[in-house]
């Protein structure tokens, strides 16, 4: 029964993740008083891109072509690991959160390398900025997962999440909410949302993530956009599992609660994007350090 639920969760993730982007855009439009794009716009974009051909620059090598494919593969692997609320992922095993963190790291690495492979100055600039932020973001993610692992005495993501709020009173208490807050900041960083990066900017000098994928086109760009949606789903699922403090006890109930939580997080991201401006580049590491200090406080709380 649980396996069926896990497989259904993966299928839902693969099908519904571009919908999250639509929700975010619609929320931003509502705040701005516009009617906004259709909710399924991201699907239309991906399908359109899949039908197009690609133009490759003469300076690029096979790395450039491999980037989007490898990135998408890594993200799909991570999707198969993460739990959905109380039910485990399909590929869960001991210590799988480290695999997840490094699969995401691989995605980032290959994007950066592919960007630098083009030899363009803009991509290099975006790559260095992205690398700088992810140094701290990765530490925050791993420490947050470690806190949860120590708190629930379990080193598999599925085990952590099922022990987290289920059964007896949570052993973590307020530490879980601190980790959730830190994870929200990591979500905003890894998915290149405001206040870290503005996804709607068209000025290359202000881009971080967008500029790295500037030279990709056609099927490659489709893979990249789909991968971005999947990554957003991934982080939202992780966050919803921590932030929603109850479990229904049944497999499908848990999944329904989790997916509702994921959509709620998408709405939250849309609200954050509408209410805040992008931070100055100097302040982004400070924000990440704030997340790190919150995580460390949570970790020491658990260890007391």
């Amino acid at each position: 029964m649980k396996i069926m639920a896990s497989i259904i969760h993966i299928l839902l993730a693969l099908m519904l993740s571009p919908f999250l982007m639509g929700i975010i855009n619609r929320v931003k439009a509502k705040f701005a008083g516009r009617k906004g794009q259709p909710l399924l716009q991201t699907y239309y974009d991906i399908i359109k891109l899949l039908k197009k051909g690609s133009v490759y620059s003469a300076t690029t090598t096979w790395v450039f072509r491999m980037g989007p494919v490898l990135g998408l593969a890594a993200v799909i692997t991570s999707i198969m690991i993460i739990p959905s609320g109380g039910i485990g992922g399909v590929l869960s095993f001991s210590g799988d959160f480290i695999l997840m963190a490094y699969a995401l790291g691989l995605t980032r690495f290959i994007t950066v390398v592919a960007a630098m492979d083009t030899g363009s100055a803009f991509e290099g600039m975006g790559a260095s900025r992205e690398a700088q932020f992810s140094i701290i973001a990765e530490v925050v993610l791993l420490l947050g997962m470690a806190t949860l692992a120590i708190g629930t005495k379990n080193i598999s993501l599925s085990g952590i999440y099922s022990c987290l709020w289920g059964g007896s009173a949570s052993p973590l208490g307020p530490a879980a909410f601190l980790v959730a807050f830190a994870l929200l900041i990591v979500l905003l960083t890894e998915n290149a949302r405001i206040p870290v990066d503005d996804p709607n900017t068209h000025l290359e000098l202000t881009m971080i993530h967008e500029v790295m994928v500037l030279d990709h086109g056609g099927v490659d760009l489709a893979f990249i956009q789909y991968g971005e949606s999947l990554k957003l789903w991934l982080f939202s699922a992780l966050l919803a599992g921590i932030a929603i403090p109850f479990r229904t006890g049944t497999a499908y109930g848990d999944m329904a609660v989790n997916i509702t939580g994921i959509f709620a997080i998408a709405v939250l991201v849309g609200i954050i994007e509408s209410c805040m401006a992008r931070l100055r580049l100097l302040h982004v590491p400070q924000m990440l350090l704030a997340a790190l200090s919150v995580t460390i406080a949570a970790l020491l709380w658990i260890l007391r």
Partner: protein
Amino acid sequence: MNTWTDIFILVLVLADFRLLATSRLAAVIQTTVLQAVCLSAFMLTMADRPWPLLLISLALVTLTIKGVVLPWLLGRAMREAGVQREIEPMVGYSSSVLIGMALLGLSFLIFVPLKASISIQSTFLLPGALFTALTGLLMIVSRKNALTQVAGYLVMENGVYAFGAALAVEEPLLVEMGVLLDVFVAVFVMGITVYQISREFDHIDTDRLSELKD
């Protein structure tokens, strides 16, 4: 009740990080108010119900002096000196937060061998209090603005007072009152001095107060 004490100490620790990261004087003063609230709150949650009247009055006096009077004094000094922000500190804000994390770990380490000999229920209290005192010290040492240094002194007193609050039920009330009075007068005198400095020098950058030396 035990968890509530720990939660208040946790907020105290998070407030320390906020102090280390911000450059705005108004934010610093508001955070000290938050710390005062946490101090009075956990003094109450540590004792058994029903709370003795003495303890309640002590908590109220602490809240009034540390949460209302002293921030008001600092705010007034800030307005008279006309300063809003910290000028470039000696240790940058990100570095201060990183040092703060190290200090938090250090505070925990220091109290590991002493755990058994303490009779208080909360094991988060002593490291949290020590960390607050160390944060205050870090602020005094690394910031150049005189008002931030006074706020750092206030935070340091908060940390030391948290130690005393752990013993609030046994320690004679008179000494606690005396401590509060002294802190109040100290900040008052410091505020007056800052005003005189700003009038005499046209700035309150203590890094430039360096004429007397050997």
